[in-house]
């Protein structure tokens, strides 16, 4: 694995990281598609992740928790926006109390693009961070309107239109 570029844009609130792997795209995709592989890398070593639900389909839900050194559990969810194996995955991520999504925590939109060439496979991760103001609400996983609005706008911010 080699990180080939990192771009932080605090104005657009995006982070883009590009990494290359000497494995076919189908295998790189599996690190997302197989929850047992996902558990081996998603959480930091001190906060390993356990994936509970893992429905990688458009509109599907992924839930997981990370277990801290003192045994505390940090719950979080993904809401899948779109999936196109083995080349793209887009989802919104947010934190939760137990398994209940919280309304006041920031959410992040994450886009994964995987491109295979004869030499290597490139994975580009783009994260768009929602702002949070005190006492204000961000779109939760069930706020359909907020989700649609944000998804349309992530395209614009990421330059897809």
């Amino acid at each position, binding site marked *: 694995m080699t990180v080939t570029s990192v771009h932080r844009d605090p104005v657009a609130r995006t982070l883009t990281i590009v990494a290359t792997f000497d*494995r076919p795209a189908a295998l790189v995709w599996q690190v997302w598609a197989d929850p047992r592989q996902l558990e081996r890398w998603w959480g930091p070593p001190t906060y390993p992740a356990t994936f509970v639900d893992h429905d990688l389909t458009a509109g599907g839900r992924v839930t997981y928790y990370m277990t801290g050194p003192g045994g505390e559990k940090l719950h979080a969810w993904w809401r899948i926006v779109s999936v196109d194996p083995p080349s793209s995955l887009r989802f919104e991520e947010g934190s939760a109390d137990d398994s209940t999504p919280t309304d006041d925590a920031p959410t992040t939109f994450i886009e994964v693009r995987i491109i295979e060439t004869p030499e290597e496979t490139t994975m580009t991760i783009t994260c768009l961070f929602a702002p949070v103001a005190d006492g204000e609400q961000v779109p939760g996983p069930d706020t359909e309107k907020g989700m649609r609005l944000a998804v349309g706008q992530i395209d614009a911010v990421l330059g897809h239109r």
Partner: protein
Amino acid sequence: MVVRRTAAQETRADRVFRALADRTRRDVIRRAMNGTLSVSELARTYPMSTTAVQKHVAVLEKAGLVRLKRHGRELLVQTEIDAVAKAQALLVEFERLWRGRLERIGDVLAETGEGVRP
């Protein structure tokens, strides 16, 4: 508990996403970092009317991304540096997190795909 919002309950997140969805508005945020450009000066840098630029600035102001300062007869546009600085700090943290994740993905792939190349 998830509170469903109505159209009237636009959040700050919605306003910021909408504000950032436009290329010109993102450019205004970058140009207005020093707070020395007026709306009319900004308008001269874009192929659009002053009124159109004023509208963009108003959207940014409503989203809390810029503020306007009266300076004589001019209205100066100042980027809310605090919002940008907070975003920058957040991005640094997330870069660290993702570098770690990518390292671990490399480790997982080293085992699962032994001998398999693109």
